[in-house]
C-alpha cells in the first residue's frame, strides 16, 4: 500500500466531480475559456501582437479599422489592437499580484484572529471594518494621491484594499470550522497549532477562498481600469486600457474605435472573470448563495 495514493485518488475524484458540474454550466464554461484566453494573451501578448505597441506613424493617425489594423489606429498612429493585447499583461500583473498579496496577507490574519478569538480578534476586526467602511475607490484615490501613481503603488493599494476583505472571509470560515468536531479531535490528540491551521482548517477554506479571490481579481481589474481612466493609474505611454480610454475620450466622435476597443475588452475580461467566479462558487460550494 502506497500511502500517497489515497490523497491522489481523492484529488482526481474531486476534479472529476468539478468537471461534471462544470459541463452542466455553460456560462461558467464560457467564462473560464475566455479568461484562459486572456491569461494566454497576458503571458505571450508582446510576441503575438501584430505591431509594436509604441511604434508611432503620423501618416496613419486615427485610421478606422482595416485588415492591416483590425481595431484601427490611435492619435499617434499606433496600432490599437496591439496596444490592447499588450495591455492585458499590465492589468493581470496589477490586479493579479495585488490580489495574490492580499490573499497571502489576509489568510493568516483571518486564520489567526478567527482561531484565537477574544480581544485580539475584536480589535483586528474592528480595524478592518474601518477599511471596509470607506468606499474602495475613494480609499484608492486618496492613497494614490499621496503616494503617487506607480505600478508598485497600484499593486500595494489593491493589496491594502483587499486584505480586510480576504481576512473577513477566512475568519468567518475559521470561526465556522474551529468548533467542528474534527478540529477538536485534533486538539485532543495534541496536534500543534500549525498542523491544525494547515491541515485541518485550511483545506476546507480553500474553495471559498478561491471563489473570493477570483471575485476580488475581477473587481481589481474594474478598479485598476477605473483608476487609469481617472488619470491616477498607470501613466503614459503604457498601453493601459483605462488610460487608453481616458486619452481617446477627446476624439471619441471622430474615432470611436480607439475608445471602444479597450472599453469592450475590459468589459469582456471582467464579465468572463465574473462568470468564472460565479461558476467556481456553484461548482465548489453548491447550495451557497451570495454574489
Amino acid at each position, binding site marked *: 500500500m502506497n*500511502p500517497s495514493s489515497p490523497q491522489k485518488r481523492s484529488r482526481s475524484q474531486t476534479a472529476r466531480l468539478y468537471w461534471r458540474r462544470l459541463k452542466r454550466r455553460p456560462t461558467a464554461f464560457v467564462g473560464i475559456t475566455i479568461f484562459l484566453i486572456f491569461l494566454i494573451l497576458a503571458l505571450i501578448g508582446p510576441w503575438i501582437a501584430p505591431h509594436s505597441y509604441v511604434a508611432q506613424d503620423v501618416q496613419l493617425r486615427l485610421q478606422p479599422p482595416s485588415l492591416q489594423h483590425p481595431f484601427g489606429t490611435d492619435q499617434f498612429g499606433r496600432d490599437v489592437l496591439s496596444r490592447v493585447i499588450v495591455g492585458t499583461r499590465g492589468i493581470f500583473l496589477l490586479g493579479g499580484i495585488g490580489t495574490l498579496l492580499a490573499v497571502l496577507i489576509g489568510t493568516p490574519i483571518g486564520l489567526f484572529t478567527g482561531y484565537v478569538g477574544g480581544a485580539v480578534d475584536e480589535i483586528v476586526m474592528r480595524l478592518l471594518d474601518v477599511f471596509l467602511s470607506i468606499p474602495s475607490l475613494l480609499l484608492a484615490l486618496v492613497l494614490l494621491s499621496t503616494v503617487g501613481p506607480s505600478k508598485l503603488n497600484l499593486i500595494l493599494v489593491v493589496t491594502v484594499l483587499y486584505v480586510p476583505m480576504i481576512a473577513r472571509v477566512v475568519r468567518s470560515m475559521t470561526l465556522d470550522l474551529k468548533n*467542528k468536531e474534527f478540529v477538536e479531535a485534533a486538539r*485532543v*490528540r495534541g496536534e500543534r497549532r500549525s498542523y491544525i491551521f494547515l*491541515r485541518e482548517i485550511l*483545506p476546507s477554506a480553500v474553495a471559498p477562498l478561491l471563489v473570493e479571490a477570483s471575485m476580488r481579481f475581477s473587481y481589481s481589474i474594474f478598479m485598476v481600469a477605473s483608476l487609469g481612466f481617472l488619470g491616477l493609474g498607470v501613466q503614459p505611454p503604457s498601453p493601459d486600457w483605462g488610460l487608453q480610454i481616458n486619452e481617446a475620450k477627446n476624439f471619441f466622435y471622430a474615432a470611436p474605435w480607439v475608445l471602444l476597443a479597450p472599453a469592450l475588452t475590459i468589459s469582456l475580461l471582467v464579465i468572463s472573470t465574473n462568470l468564472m467566479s460565479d461558476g467556481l462558487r456553484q461548482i465548489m460550494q453548491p447550495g451557497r448563495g451570495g454574489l
Partner: protein
Amino acid sequence: MAAEVNKQPVLEVEDLDIVYDTEHGPLDAVRKASFAIHEHESFGLVGESGSGKSTLAMGAIRYLAANGRIAGGSVRLNGKELADVPRHEMRHLWGSQIGVVYQSPLSALNPSYRIGRQIAEVAQLHMGMDKAKSSARAIEMLTKVAMPDPESVMRRYPHQLSGGMLQRCVIAMALMTNPSLLIMDEPTTALDVTTQAVVLDLVWGLKQQFDSAILYITHDLGVVAKICDRIGVLYAGEFMEQGDLRQIFHTPIHPYMLNLLGCVPHFDLGQAKRSLVCIPGFIPRIDELPDGCIFAERCEWAEEACTVERPPFVHTKDDHYTACRRWEIVPPVDEHVFAATSELAQRGGGEDEAHLVEATDVRKIFRTPSTGLLGRGERHDIHAVDGMTLWISHGRTLGIVGESGSGKTTVARTIIGLEEATSGEIKLHDEVLATSLSKRPRSVLKEIQMVFQNPDASLNPHTSVGEAIGRPVRLLTDASGAEIQARVLELLDAVQLPSNYYYRMPGELSGGEKQRVAIARAFAADPELILCDEPISSLDVSVQGALMNLLMTLQAEKGTSFLFISHDLSAVQHLSDWISVVYLGHMMEWGDATKVLTPPFHPYTEALLSAVPVADPDAKQANIRLEGSVPSAMDIPPGCRFHPRCPRCLGDICRTEEPPWREDGGDHWIYCHIPLEELREMEAGTLELATERGGAE
C-alpha cells in the same frame, strides 16, 4: 367505536408509486404502497431514514418537490379520488380537510409574524371568518391544546416560545378546521424527552376529542408504541409489514421488523450487559434494488427463492400483512430478541473498584458576549456545570443522562480539557490534571479520547480514513512507519470495517461508518477513558444498535472506561454500569445503574422514566409530567434547582434550601429533601414492563 371501523376509510392509498426525476434518471422512491386510515384511528408510518415515509405521506396528499411525481396507484380522501382533483381544489383540501404538523416547529412557523395571525389565517381562509372571529377560534384551539395563557401567546413571535409550546401552536393550527386527516411528521423528534411526553399525551387526548384520522410518521419505535393503533413498516420504499400495533410488536412476521425490535435496547435492569440482535449490512440504494426481496441480503432466513422474485405484500390473518414469503417461520420475539443474545459483562463497579478518573466539584461558567458599547454592558454568567462530583472506575461505563441544557456535554468537555473548568479538580490516576488541554502532557492526552456526536463533522472531509486513524497513533504511541499502518488496519478490523477503507474519504462513508472510524480513532492510542458524547443519537435505529454492540465488545476486549453521554435513557441504561442524572448543571441522582433506575428515585429521574418512550405497547408507565421548560442556566432557581418543575415539591424548604445528598447504600445518592423511604413508597410502579423479558432465557 368498533362499529365505525367498518365505515369508509378517511384516507385510502392503493398501490401508490412515487418517482423522483433526478439527473441520473427516475428514482422509484415509493413502490406499490397501500394503506388505509379510518376516523379516530392513528396509523404509524415507521421506517429508518431513506425508507420513503415522508415521501409517501406527502405524495399521498400530492405535495411533492418539483421533481417528484405520482407514477401510479390511487389515493382517496373520504372516497374522493385525489388524482382527479385540480390543483386549486387540492389547495383548498390542504388546510381544510388535511392538517399537517411538522418535525421542527420553529422553522415551520414564519419568524416575521405573530403566532395569532398565523393560526387565525387558516380560519379566515377556509371558514370564511373575519379577523375577530378567527382570533377567537384560534384562542379556542390554543386552549384545546392546553396552551397556558393563549391570549398572550397569540401576540408572541415564534422565537419567543419554547419548542414544546411552538409544537402546540402548530398542532392547534393544523386542527383549526377540524380536518378529517391529520399528518404528523416526526412531531416530537426535535423535543426533549419530558416535553415529548407532554406533546404525546396531548396528541393522545386530541385523538379522542377529534374525529381526525392521524397519519403519524416516525422512526422511533417507542413513540409509535405509545401513540398508534395500527402501523406500517417501510423499508427502502416498500411496506414490509402492516397491521395492528400490538400484533406487530408481539408477533412480527417480517424479519426486518423482528430485527428492528432487536436493535432497540430494552430496560433490563439488574441484568448483565448483553449485546443486541442487529441487522447486518446496509439499506440498499433505491436505484440498485435487487430483483428479489429487498431485505433478502440482510435476512438470516432468506433462501434462494427469496432472491428470485419480489414477494407480494400479502394478507396473513386478521389485520396483518407482510412482504415476507416465509413469514410462517419467523420466530417469536421473546425467543429471538430477548433470549438469544450473548452476555458480555456483569454490570457493577462498586465502591471497592479503583477510580480511574475523579472529578471534584467541577464548575464551568461561560460568560456571554458583552451586549453594551465597547464591551462594557452587562454580561451574563451561564452556569453550564454547577458543581459536579463524579468518578469512573476502571473498565466501567458511567452514563450521564439529561435533557438539553443539562450540562452533560460540558462536563465531559472539561474532563478532556476542551473547556477549561472554572473551578474544581479533575484527577486521573490520583494525579490532578491541568484544566487547559494545551498544558496537559502527551501521556495524559493519550489516556483520554473522545467520540463526538455529529458523524459528519467528526472527520475532516479532506483527510482519508487511514490518515485520520493513523494521526493519533503517530502522535501518541511509539509506533512509527509501517507499524502505524499495521495498527490502523488492526483498528479498522476492530470496528468491523474492511481494510480497503484505509483509502476512503469521509465523503464516501455512511453515517454509521463515519462513526466507526471515529471510534477507531478514539481507540487508536489505546486510551484508558473514552468520552462518548451522544455518539449514536443522530443515527438510524439499526445503526445505533450495531454501534452499541461495537462499543460494548471493544470495552470487554480492551478494558477501556467509558463516559457515555446521552439524552436517551434506554441507551444509557443499556450500556452503563453507573448512571448520573443531571439537570441544569447539577447531578440529581447518581450511582449504580440498577439502583438509579429502581425506586427510590429522584423526582426528576422518576419523571424521565415515566416519559421515556418504551418500544413495548404494554409497558405501564406512571403519568408524571413536568410543567414548563428548563430554566435558563443564567438564572438558576434558588434552593433545589428542580423545584419549579418538581411534581413532588415539598414547599418552602425546596424553594430556599439546597437539598442534601441522601445516601442509599455505598453506591447510590439522591439529591432531594424528601427522605429515601418516602420516595420509595410514592414511586412504586413508575415503569412496569409487560413481560419480564430479561429473564426469559
